[in-house]
C-alpha cells in the first residue's frame, strides 16, 4: 500500500518533470537548430521567422496529439465501426442501424432519454433560478447556496447510494428505514418499492441528478442576476410593478442567454447520464438509457462494437446542434476581439 503511494507520487513527479523537460528541451533544440547570433543578418532574420513558425507547434504538440488520439480519431473510428459487424471485421452496411430502429430496448432507451431531457434541465434551471432569487435577499443566503451547491462535489455513485437509502423498502410489517417510505407510511399509505415501479422509477432516478445539478444552475444564474442593471429594476418599481412582474418581465428576459447556457450544459450532461442508472437499477424495470445500453452492448456476449457504435452515434447526433452553436458563439466572441 505504501509502495503504491510512493510509486504514484514518483510517477507524478517523473511525469510532470518529463512534461516540463519536453517543453524546455524542444525550445532549446529549436534555438540551437536555428541560430540567430551569426554574422549573417539575412540568415538570422530568416531563422527568427522560422522559429516563430515552428514554436507554436512545439507548444501545442502534446495537447494536439492527445486530442487526436483520444477524441478525434475515436469519433471517426466509431462512425466507421457502426457499419461493421460485432467484431468490427465485416462490413454490414446499415444493418446495425436497422437493428436499432426495430429494437425494443433501443426504443425504450430513447423514450427514457427524452423523458430525462424533458424533466431534468427544466427542473434544475427552474429550481436554480428560484433559489438564486430567494437567497439573494437574505443575510444567510451564501450559506444556503453552499449547501445547495454541495452535491456538485459528490460522485454520481455516492449520490446513488445516498438516494437508494432514501428509497429503501421494507415489508409493510417492518419499521421503514427509508425516509420516503417512512413518510408515506406515517401518512397512512403503503410502503412502495420505488425503484422497480415502471415509468415512475425514471423520475426517482431523475431526482438524484436534479439534486446534484441544481447548485450548478443556481451559481451561474445568481451571477447573471447580479449583473442586471439596477436602473431597469428601479424604473419598473417607479412604474408600479410588483415583485412577481419584476421577476418575470424585467429580470428573466435579461438573463435569457445565461438560462440557455445552463439549459444546454445540463442537457449534454443528461444525454450522457450513466452512473446513476448503472448503480440504481442497471437498466432494469424499464429505466434503460442510451449511455447504459451502449455500455451493455460493448461487453454483452463478448461485445458488439457495431451496435454499440450506433448507440454512441445517436448520443453524438443529439449533442451536435449544441456543439455547432457553441462553436459559432466562440467564433463570434473571437471576432469581436
Amino acid at each position: 500500500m505504501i509502495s503504491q503511494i510512493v510509486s504514484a507520487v514518483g510517477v507524478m513527479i517523473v511525469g510532470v518533470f518529463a512534461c516540463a523537460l519536453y517543453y524546455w528541451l524542444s525550445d532549446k533544440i529549436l534555438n540551437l537548430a536555428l541560430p540567430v547570433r551569426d554574422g549573417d543578418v539575412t540568415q538570422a532574420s530568416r531563422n527568427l521567422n522560422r522559429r516563430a513558425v515552428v514554436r507554436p507547434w512545439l507548444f501545442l504538440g502534446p495537447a494536439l496529439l492527445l486530442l487526436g488520439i483520444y477524441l478525434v480519431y475515436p469519433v471517426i473510428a466509431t462512425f466507421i465501426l457502426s457499419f461493421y459487424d460485432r467484431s468490427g471485421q465485416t462490413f454490414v452496411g446499415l444493418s446495425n442501424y436497422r437493428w436499432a430502429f426495430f429494437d425494443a430496448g433501443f426504443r425504450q432507451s430513447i423514450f427514457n432519454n427524452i423523458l430525462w431531457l424533458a424533466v431534468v434541465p427544466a427542473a434544475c434551471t427552474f429550481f436554480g433560478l428560484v433559489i438564486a432569487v430567494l437567497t439573494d435577499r437574505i443575510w444567510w443566503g451564501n450559506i444556503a447556496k453552499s449547501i445547495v451547491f454541495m452535491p456538485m462535489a459528490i460522485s454520481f455513485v455516492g449520490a446513488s447510494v445516498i438516494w437508494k437509502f432514501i428509497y429503501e423498502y421494507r415489508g409493510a410489517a417492518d419499521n421503514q428505514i427509508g425516509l420516503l417510505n417512512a413518510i408515506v407510511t406515517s401518512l397512512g399509505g403503503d410502503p412502495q418499492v420505488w425503484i422497480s415501479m415502471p415509468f415512475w422509477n425514471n423520475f426517482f432516478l431523475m431526482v438524484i441528478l436534479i439534486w446534484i445539478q441544481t447548485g450548478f444552475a443556481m451559481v451561474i444564474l445568481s451571477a447573471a442576476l447580479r449583473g442586471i442593471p439596477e436602473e431597469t429594476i428601479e424604473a419598473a418599481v417607479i412604474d408600479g410593478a410588483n415583485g412577481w412582474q419584476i421577476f418575470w418581465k424585467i429580470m428573466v428576459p435579461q438573463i435569457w442567454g445565461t438560462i440557455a447556457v445552463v439549459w444546454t450544459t445540463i442537457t449534454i450532461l443528461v444525454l450522457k447520464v450513466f452512473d446513476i442508472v448503472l448503480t440504481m437499477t442497471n437498466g432494469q424495470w424499464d429505466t434503460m438509457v442510451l449511455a447504459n445500453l451502449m455500455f451493455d452492448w460493448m461487453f454483452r456476449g463478448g461485445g458488439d462494437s457495431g451496435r454499440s457504435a450506433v448507440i454512441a452515434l445517436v448520443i453524438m447526433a443529439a449533442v451536435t446542434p449544441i456543439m455547432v452553436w457553441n462553436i459559432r458563439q466562440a467564433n463570434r466572441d473571437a471576432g469581436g476581439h
Partner: protein
Amino acid sequence: MANLVTRLKRVGLPRLIVHLSVLLIVILWLIPTLGILVTSIRDKDQITTSGWWTAFSSSTQTSAGRLGDPSSAKQDGANYVITGSVFEEGQGGTVRAFGVRVQDPAAFPAGEPADLGEGETLTIESDGSYVYTKTAPFEGSRGKRIYLTVATPPEFTLTNYQTVLQGEGIGQAFINSLTVTIPATIIPILIAAFAAYALSWMSFPGRALIIAMVVGLIVVPLQMSLIPLLRLYNEVGNFFGTSSKTYAGIWLAHTAFGMPLAIYLLRNYIAGLPKEIIESARVDGASDFEIFVKIVLPLSFPALASFAIFQFLWVWNDLLIAIVFLGTGRDQLVLTGSLNALLGSRGGNWEILTASAFVTIIVPLLVFFGLQRYLVRGLLAGSVKGG
C-alpha cells in the same frame, strides 16, 4: 447590489416567507447526505430496526424475559418476595413499560406497582430492578414470563468505518483513487497551459480552426471514444505483452478527456492578460518560453486552480472511465468502482454502504468547502464539462 436588494425587499415577497422557503430548501438538500452520515456511525443492528432520524432519541424495543426462580423467593412477613434485575449482566437500557401477557406487552408503566391478581404485585423500576411479591408462596419451578418495553440510549460507533476500510477493501480503493487522481489532475494542467498560451499569444495559420475544434470537442460524449480506445488499448497491451489495464493508461485517458475544457478555460484567462506586460517582455528580448514560465504561468494561478479543482472532482468521481480502462482487481479498483460493486454484493448492508459512501465523498467535499471560491470562478469562466 445592496441597493438592488433593498429595492426588491420593498416590493418583493414578505421576508418571512423567503426565509422559510430557503430554510425548507436547505433542509431538503441537506437531509439525504445527513442520512448516510448518521447511519454510517450507528450500530449495525439499530440501522435495520429503526430509521436514522430516530438515532438521536432512544430506540424502544419489546423483549421477553423471565423473573427469578420461585426458589429464590424470600419471606418478608406475610409476603414472599423475589428481587433482582430484568437485565442480564452487561445489558443496559431504560424500562418504559412491562406486561405479563404477550398480547399486551406494555400493560403497566415502569416504576408503579402492578397488581397481577391472585395476590401478586410486580414493580419494575426503570433501571431494571424489580420487586415481585405474593401473599402466598410462589409455585412452579421456573420464573415468571414477562414482556418489557426497553428504551436503549443512542449508540454511535466507528466500527462500520473500521469494517469497510479493512474488511471491504475501501482503504485500498482510497489509495487507488489517489493514485489515479493526483497525476491525472496535474499533468493536464501543464500541457493545456502551454497550448493555451500558444492559442492566445502566438500567431500561426490554423489558430482559429484549432480553437473552434477545442470548443467543439468539449461536448463530444465520452461514449464516442470508448470502443476505439478499448480496441487500441488491447492492441497496445498485446503488442507489449502486458495488460491493457494500467494506471498509465487511465492517466493518459483522463488527461486527454480533460484537455478540451482545460485549454478552453485557460485560453479564456490567458488571452485576457494585459497585452502590455507580454509585449514589453518581448521587447526586452524574452523568448516565448521565458514569457510563459516567468510571466503567464504565475499570473494564471486562479485559472489553473479552478481547472485543477474541476479535474480533481471529475477524476475522483468518475466511474465510467475507471471501469473501462482499469481492472476490477483489488489493486486497481477505485472508490467509485468499489462502491458500485458493494451495491451489488452488499445491497442490504447499509452499515457498509453508508460508511463506504461517506469515505468516497469526504475528499471531494473537503476540496469543495475549502476551495469553493475557485470552483465558482471556474464555473463562471464559461463552460463546464459534465460526467
